[in-house]
């Protein structure tokens, strides 16, 4: 009996039986299939639109828009292009989403903590707020604030007058506008220096506290320094800022800065609606922190306020952040309900008016979808980064 000197090895299977080869082939086929479907859909759309005499392409972005927009953060008038209307709408969407996220977070945290208060009245008021605002459709809330609350304000001629410089009417809130004259850069520099000083101070104070345990009062210094330095600059340069005070002329107020009621109604509705969800998320986060943590911190002699700030909330954040992210995304997407009350956001200005004037639905809808997708992904990325920073570090 002879033995084979070669070690026993499984022979290479035929390629069509090799699971690795098969999986790669199928994946390539699947990708090719998806790409083919995508290409054909695109090609079909373009050729069908051409055969029906519908204009295509992005050339319209350079054409003159010819319509007015009530509110713009960047320079805009009727003689500018459709491309500019896109930017105006985008900025307005970012403004209302950004402010909405900021305010909803603050209100949500306050209400969420109040919901757990040992004070019966505070806890019940927070509960009532959450249940009311969470269970009424957002669109109804927007209409409520717009037509019932802000619409009930008096007209511009009977406006609520605050010391002859600010006015509140159903056309919005009009405030004096600062006009910066030459020399105002000194104030700007003062602000930058103040901010930089506070940041450096905060880092130093943190290190010192870690090393010695002594606390340095950064906050009071910041409160004095941040308005103080620009004010010093203002006084030194002899007041390089004048105020454009609004006054009633003709139909409306002229001059000043106007915050339109559409922005106010949308912001109120988005903030209060989303905050009610955030409050519940915050409450669930706090409840998820073991009671022993609080008891241990209290046993160490920490005051209740610091127990919350230093022990409970940092641990609660791990539970809070992921669902909070989706609330931020919801708020941003919900801001497109602006169209119902005429706030000039991206959907109203670009997908409404611009689409209608040009008729280029496919391009404009695609651009608008791309914008919302980009904003949402950006929020997700930022929140995931933050989540990684506060997540439990496993060693």
């Amino acid at each position: 009996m002879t033995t084979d000197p070669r070690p026993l090895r499984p022979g290479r299977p035929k390629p069509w039986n090799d699971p690795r080869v098969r999986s790669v082939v199928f994946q390539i086929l699947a990708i090719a299939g998806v790409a083919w479907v995508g290409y054909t859909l695109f090609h079909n759309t373009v050729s069908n639109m051409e055969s029906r005499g519908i204009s295509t392409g992005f050339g319209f972005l350079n054409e003159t828009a010819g319509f007015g927009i009530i509110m713009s953060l960047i320079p805009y008038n009727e003689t500018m292009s459709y491309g500019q209307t896109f930017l105006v709408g985008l900025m307005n969407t970012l403004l209302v989403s950004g402010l909405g996220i900021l305010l909803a977070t603050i209100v949500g945290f306050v209400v969420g903590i109040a919901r757990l208060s040992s004070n019966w009245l505070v806890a019940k008021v927070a509960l009532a707020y959450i249940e009311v605002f969470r269970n009424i459709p957002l669109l109804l809330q927007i209409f409520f604030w717009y037509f019932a609350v802000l619409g009930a304000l008096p007209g511009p001629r009977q406006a609520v007058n605050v010391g002859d410089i600010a006015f509140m009417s159903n056309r919005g809130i009009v405030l004096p506008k600062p006009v910066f004259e030459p020399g105002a850069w000194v104030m700007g520099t003062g602000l930058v220096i103040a901010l930089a000083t506070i940041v450096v101070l905060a880092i130093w104070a943190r290190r010192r506290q870690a090393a010695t345990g002594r606390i340095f009062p950064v906050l009071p210094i910041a409160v004095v320094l941040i308005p103080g330095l620009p004010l010093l600059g203002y006084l030194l340069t002899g007041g390089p800022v004048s105020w454009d005070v609004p006054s009633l002329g003709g139909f409306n107020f002229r001059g000043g800065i106007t915050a339109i009621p559409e922005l106010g109604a949308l912001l109120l509705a988005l903030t209060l609606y989303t905050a009610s969800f955030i409050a519940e998320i915050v409450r669930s986060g706090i409840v998820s922190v073991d009671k022993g943590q609080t008891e241990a911190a209290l046993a160490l002699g920490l005051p209740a306020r610091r127990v919350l700030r230093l022990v409970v909330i940092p641990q609660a954040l791990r539970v809070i952040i992921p669902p909070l992210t989706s609330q931020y995304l919801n708020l941003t997407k919900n801001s497109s309900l602006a169209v119902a009350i005429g706030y000039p956001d991206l959907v109203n200005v670009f997908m409404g008016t611009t689409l209608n004037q040009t008729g280029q639905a496919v391009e404009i809808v695609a651009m608008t979808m791309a914008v919302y997708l980009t904003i949402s992904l950006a929020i997700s990325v930022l929140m995931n980064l933050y989540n990684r920073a506060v997540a439990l570090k496993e060693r």
Partner: protein
Amino acid sequence: MKKTMIMFGLAATGLLALGAQAQASTLEDVRDAGQLRCGVSNGLPGFSQPDSDGNWTGLDVDTCRAVAAAVLGDANAVEFIPLTAAERFTALQSGEIDVLSRNTTWTTTRDASLGLNFTGTNYYDGQGFLVKEALGVDSAYDLDGAAVCTQAGTTTELNLADFFRANDMEYEAVVFDTSEASAQGFDNNRCDILTSDTSQLAALRTQLSDPDSAVILPEVISKEPLGPVVRQGDDEWFNVVKWVLFGQINAEEYGVDSTNVDEMVDSNNPNVERILGADGNMGEILGLNDDFMVEVISEIGNYGEMFDRNVGPDTPIGLSRGVNALWTDGGILYAPPFR
């Protein structure tokens, strides 16, 4: 696995074939479906508005019903699809509706770049301004600095900007997505002025909480010929929709109306005979029955009847014929002859 892939491929091919289907004849499609799909405004008194039973009435609605009467012999064989200004062209382009009759202004851009054809004008309109009487304004040239409510996606927005710029005046445009919302904004005093086509202003005025508190200014700042629209590239259907309206205008000119149409068939006026199909083959060459106009006139009436019933002086809208009178009466309605 392979089976799944093949199924997927088949499904995808089917989907694409559907997207790429050849352009069918709208006339045949309407006959096969047994009803006309008509895009109308989502509520504009006098032009298109559903009543509490869901029956649509209005000038734009009757324009569609006339087409249904001509093609299907039944003025009620219409499915009305309410559309906002922003949705209307896409709905027509995508084939969701067969004809768009939604107080739509005929402009170069819309005619040339949207793949659409305007078949004619069922109402000659112009843009005007509605203001609160209390403001004491009696001319559009005194509107500097006013806040203006208007509807998104209309020629109105552009005319407004042109008018104020040309006259070196400032304005603040508050843009809503439906005409009711813009009227509500005006009613709530969000704006000093409501601007739209004057016929619409007359209609929206009736919906204000106090209609008598608002007046329409005398200035008309634009030309707004409103009419039905069809898809480009289907000339047969284009002709049908076009000639039904021409037929109604011609009928009024020759004194044919819903009360006398049965006697008029025996008229010895050759013009009337050709319109009503007693002579010639006008219906046949359009792809319809020769007596299609008899059906239209007996069910809907001629243009004048359609006008008076929906927006005329005896209705709450109370519009006079004005330029929409026949050319023989000093207006500009002038339909090509049936010959």
